[in-house]
């Protein structure tokens, strides 16, 4: 990968991180629960790097990072999360259902494994209509508990669909290591795809370069007509998710930590954004350049938030529109 490409990857990851940090700082303005992608930025960046305009992407309840990484308008996202008017959703969707049809995200299901099964159909459409592009289905390790996931794997394999299963696995490992996690009897999550004869790879999702390589390989195989692929991205669970609402227990990301190995705690060691920054430093990029990039990302994220927070709510009539076809 070239230097500018890698800077672009860091930019995508920073967009994702700063978006969620700003949101957490303003959580009091949000109704209900929301889910952040802190720690998932490597997956988001790999997705953004591998996708083409003709692809479709099915996200889940934890969708902010991927949208930020693929370039969705962050002010529109914030407006939606705050229940304001603005984008096409006009306050009907909220954080759980953020979407961006123009970038291949027509709909986001917040039901565990719900989107995966929908993605099977999207891939079927691509195949039967001979349309360009492939489909990505992003989901958590928890979705591996659902029968819907199993049925989806079977259908995708039987029909050789152009579909990349992306499992963002942030579960704590099982104590004795004989199981994938405490809620899975299988030894590994990849085994559950593999048994359906879907080639499956497990990768350290905290290592953005490895993550991107794994994603690119899978995507190339799927684009080549090789049928579905399965990726397990092993992620360190971000401690801020432990509470009902995310809390910034690890503090705001400080990119200069990339130059202070061991300075911060366990989370810093696992943080994919810092990992990416460290790799860039190793490649000879100057920290100052990274900080300039970060400042510009932050500024644009903060502008987006401020503008969204000042936006009006949609009129009441919006609540009743778009239910059935006109």
């Amino acid at each position: 990968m070239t230097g500018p490409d890698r800077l672009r990857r860091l930019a995508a990851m920073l967009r994702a991180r700063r978006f969620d940090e700003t949101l957490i700082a303003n959580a009091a303005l949000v109704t209900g629960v929301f889910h952040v992608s802190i720690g998932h930025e490597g997956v988001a960046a790999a997705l953004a790097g591998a996708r083409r305009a003709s692809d479709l992407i099915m996200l889940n309840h934890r969708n902010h990072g991927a949208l930020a990484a693929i370039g969705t308008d962050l002010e529109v996202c914030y407006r939606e999360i705050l229940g304001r008017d603005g984008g096409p959703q006009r306050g009907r969707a909220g954080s759980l259902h953020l979407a961006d049809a123009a970038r291949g995200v027509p709909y986001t299901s917040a039901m565990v494994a719900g989107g995966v099964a929908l993605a099977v159909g999207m891939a079927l459409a691509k195949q039967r209509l001979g349309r360009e592009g492939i489909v990505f289905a992003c989901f958590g390790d928890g979705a591996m508990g659902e029968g819907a996931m199993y049925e989806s794997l079977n259908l995708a394999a039987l029909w050789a669909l152009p579909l990349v299963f992306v499992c963002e696995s942030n579960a704590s490992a099982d104590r004795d290591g004989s199981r994938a996690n405490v809620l899975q009897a299988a030894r590994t999550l990849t085994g559950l795809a593999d048994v359906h004869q879907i080639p499956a790879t497990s990768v350290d999702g905290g290592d953005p370069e490895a993550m991107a390589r794994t994603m690119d390989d899978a995507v190339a195989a799927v684009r080549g007509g090789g049928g579905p692929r399965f990726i397990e991205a092993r992620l360190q669970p971000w401690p801020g998710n432990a509470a009902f609402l995310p809390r910034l227990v690890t503090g705001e990301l400080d990119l200069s930590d990339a130059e202070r190995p061991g300075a911060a705690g366990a989370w810093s060691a696992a943080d994919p954004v810092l990992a990416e920054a460290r790799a860039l430093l190793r490649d000879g990029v100057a920290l100052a350049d990274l900080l300039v990039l970060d400042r510009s990302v932050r500024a644009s994220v903060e502008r987006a938030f401020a503008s969204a927070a000042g936006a009006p709510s949609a009129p009441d009539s919006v609540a009743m529109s778009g239910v059935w076809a006109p």
Partner: protein
Amino acid sequence: MTLVLRYHEARSRALFRELDANPSLLLLGGAVALPFNPDDGLLERYADRILWPPISEFATAAAAIGAAMAGLRTLVPISTSSFMFYGWAPIVNEAPNVRYLSGGTVSAPVAFHVMAGSRRGGAAQHEHTPQAMLHNVPGLRVLAPATPADVDAAVHGALTGDDPTVIVDNVRLAEFEGPLGSSPADIRLPTLLRDGSDVLIVSYSLMVQQALLAAGLLANQGIAAAVLDVAQLAPLPHAELLAATERHDTVLFVDESRAAGSPASHMLARVVQARPRVTARLLCTLDAPAPFAPALVDAIVPGPAQIAAEVRALLGR
């Protein structure tokens, strides 16, 4: 010259027509007429238009919805309606949200076909009336045809409309005959199938045919019963329903569903709200799962005799 067909013939004709009109229309499974109605040759004639899924109702339903969002329209013949309970989540909690959550920019035009109601011998797990659940879901279109013209319109509406649609069909409608217009009717409009000044019977699906038989029995007894067929259960065409019922002060709502949650109870509520002086009554299947033995089914599901008796009781004659 009007074309007169049996219900199952009209259904096959409509399905073949839509398959021919839309070359990318795909069937996920093939059990529309089969196994309970006469074989219409669908499976051989359109073999390449049918993809047979494993017994995976959840993923099949969801795949159909996802395909619809991505431009591929499918019909999912679920066969016995209760199998759809395995795919309930995508049908009631994904498909109907697509348009709403996208602010109208994305839609999920997909069609499900189920055989509902008591077919006799199906017993507790095979004779449901899921329309009593489905009509509660905003964003779903629920069609329950009663006549050849209805099924023609329902198949056309489901396979050309822009809403996720469930066709709630009934195995026992197959042999009923009726006329067809030169093009599919508008399924949203209630149809007055028989006029009569003493009482109006409002129903849908098989119970419309039973009501027509009941009206015949009542005519022999000097009672003139009108029969109104409401084939679109959701969204319910309120204004049209009210207009079609306004000439009658005595209305019997008949439904093969159990009363609680039945489309008939909803229609009754709409009508009595608008016209408080109407005398309205509900005749539904009694509150038990479907028993196996046909005699026991007849003890709980309304037939022509029960409908006629209810009308007489309502009129005090």
